[in-house]
């Protein structure tokens, strides 16, 4: 067993950290207040290669492993959750789904520009009446000759107004005996006629990001844009979530670290009863607990990243990492505010933003309740993961780094 990061991992981490600290940290509060994404963020993340970090070089990516993706997400979310959300949808939920399920032609057409950051990608699963209950979705895809005609509206879509491609889930068989088997997946280009989108405002957190709705009205897509087979959509969506949840887990680990670092700073500056508050045992208890959460969350996502690297199914471990890290990030942010006292309650310090951002992640990509039930199911033997027709490929350094033929 070796838990050392390689020098390559360390350099990736430092590079992403430097970007987030220098180019985003100084302006994030302003954009969080405005409720908009700072316009330079996506172009810079594209230019630096972050948007293609763990995709093979031959598909326009940077050829790094899945652990590097987690490390990058941790560093991004230390500065702001919205940076990590970009990686969750663009990479975790969409691009890795294309890598796993896409035909060579689809990879060339859609994955390459996404890996290069020329196109931004989102994930359209949730609807107003279908969150945890995915099979309740109302979106439809009707076969029309060699095309499909898509209708429906997706909501709570990250990067809704930024994305060029949406991985879109809709029912090709609305009357399937098992409604899960009636769902298919499509790549929808948002420039197509009939696609519209907008951002939602009034959110508790992730305010410096784009969260919105995407609607398809009689949108025609060729059948060659269907990902996987007809009826395979639910399994595709769940496999995408295995990767999205990994980015949420690693990001939430970063959010715990942000709460911890802010608390360490403040507890050593602020004095009460003649000494820094760090000298008080109840403050120490909060800090110790954050350290514990941080290290446990980090080990859990490292484990998930390692499993991905060696090509082993990791639905259980990824769910565990996501569940633990997001719950712990809410707790850490709450305690960080408590340590900051009244100052923590105002946006003079970043900890209130950490709390607002943390709360979203115990809801999206599987609520904490869903993950609780999943873990109980695995423990009781009532839940097992059936093999998929196509699994996420194991990381192979030589194959990932080989240039296009």
């Amino acid at each position, binding site marked *: 067993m070796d838990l050392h990061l*390689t*020098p*390559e991992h360390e*350099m*990736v981490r*430092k*590079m992403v950290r*430097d*970007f987030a600290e220098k180019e985003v940290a100084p302006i994030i509060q302003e954009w969080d207040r405005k409720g908009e994404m700072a316009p330079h963020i996506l172009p810079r993340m594209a230019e*630096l*290669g972050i948007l293609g*970090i763990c995709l093979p070089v031959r598909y326009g990516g*940077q*050829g*790094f492993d899945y652990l590097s993706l987690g490390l990058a997400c941790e560093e991004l979310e230390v500065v702001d959750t919205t940076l990590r959300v970009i990686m969750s949808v663009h990479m975790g939920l969409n691009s890795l789904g294309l890598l796993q399920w896409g035909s060579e032609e689809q990879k060339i057409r859609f994955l390459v520009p996404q890996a290069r950051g020329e196109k931004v990608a989102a994930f359209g699963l949730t609807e107003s009446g279908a969150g945890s209950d995915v099979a309740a979705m109302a979106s439809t895809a009707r076969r029309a000759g060699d095309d499909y005609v898509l209708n429906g509206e997706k909501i709570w879509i990250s990067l809704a107004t930024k994305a060029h491609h949406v991985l879109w889930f809709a029912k090709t068989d609305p009357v399937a005996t098992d409604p899960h088997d009636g769902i298919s997946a499509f790549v929808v280009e948002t420039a197509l006629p009939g696609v519209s989108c907008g951002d939602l405002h009034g959110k508790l957190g992730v305010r410096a990001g784009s969260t919105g709705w995407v609607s398809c009205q009689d949108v025609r897509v060729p059948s060659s844009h269907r990902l996987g087979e007809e009826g395979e959509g639910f399994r595709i969506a769940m496999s995408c979530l295995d990767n999205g949840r990994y980015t949420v887990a690693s990001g939430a680990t970063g959010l715990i670290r942000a709460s911890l670092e802010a608390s360490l700073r403040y507890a050593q500056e602020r004095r009460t009863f003649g000494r820094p508050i760090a000298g008080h045992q109840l403050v120490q208890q909060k800090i110790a607990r954050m350290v514990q959460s941080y290290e446990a969350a980090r080990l859990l996502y490292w484990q998930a990243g390692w499993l991905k690297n060696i090509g082993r199914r990791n639905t259980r471990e990824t769910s565990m990492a996501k569940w633990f890290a997001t719950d712990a990030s809410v707790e850490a942010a709450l305690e960080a505010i408590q340590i900051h006292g009244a100052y923590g309650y105002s946006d003079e310090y970043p900890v209130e933003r950490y709390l607002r951002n943390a709360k979203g992640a115990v809801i999206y990509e599987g609520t904490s309740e869903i993950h609780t039930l999943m873990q109980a199911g695995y423990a009781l033997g009532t839940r097992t993961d059936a093999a998929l027709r196509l699994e996420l490929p194991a990381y192979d350094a030589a194959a990932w*780094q080989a240039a296009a033929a």
Partner: protein
Amino acid sequence: MNVVVCVKQTPDTAASLSVKDGRASWGDAPLVLNPWDEYAVEQALRTKETHGGKVTALSMGPTEAREALKQSLAMGCDEAVLVTDPALAEADSLVTSAALAAALRKIGDVDIAFFGKQAVDTDTGVTAAQVARRLGWPSLTLTAAIPALDPSQRSITVERMMEESRQTVRAGLPAVVSVVKEINEPRYPSFMGIRRASKAEIPVWSAADIGLTPVPAAVLSWPEMIAPPKVEVSCEFIEGATPQEIAAQLVSKLFEAKVI
């Protein structure tokens, strides 16, 4: 252009310095490429991008200094060389400059040697000038801009950062140029650069390899370091019913404290 950038591995600037048994200690702070040297690496890379040629990163230090060289490679340097030798462990800047000058001679045909203006740990700021003196090259320190560089005419013009002004200086090549942070914005390493750097085998030269035998003895040592007494700052809020009342109280307090 044959460009060399001399770099040092230093503790992270976020690390706090403490005095332990009369010696400076940064605890277990992470070691990084000296932040001032990032500007030097950037300038070396820009010089190559404009004029062609190659950039070699050169460091003298313990074997761990390889990491600073890897960071330089990740940013885009073509090659790196580490000079390390037990006899150089206690080097002062005079010894360091002898080693770097010898290594620059061994590299050969160098047109420009870039340096950061100083290292964040020892803060002497004289190594670049000493290297220039040893090589007999012009010493262009505190460079904030390079408005002209003409390899065919073997000339370089730099703006040196002075207090409240800039001084334009012209010199011939080869030259030593130390840079200040106003000169550029250092790039991040690219992912491709990181991969190349992590696989790179960095040649290691001993004192004998660079012909520095015997290694001269250091003329400076740090027999003692004293931590400055901590300044205790206390903050007091003056309250009052009206601004006038608060101002009056403030004035009397400033009188009491003999500030005014």
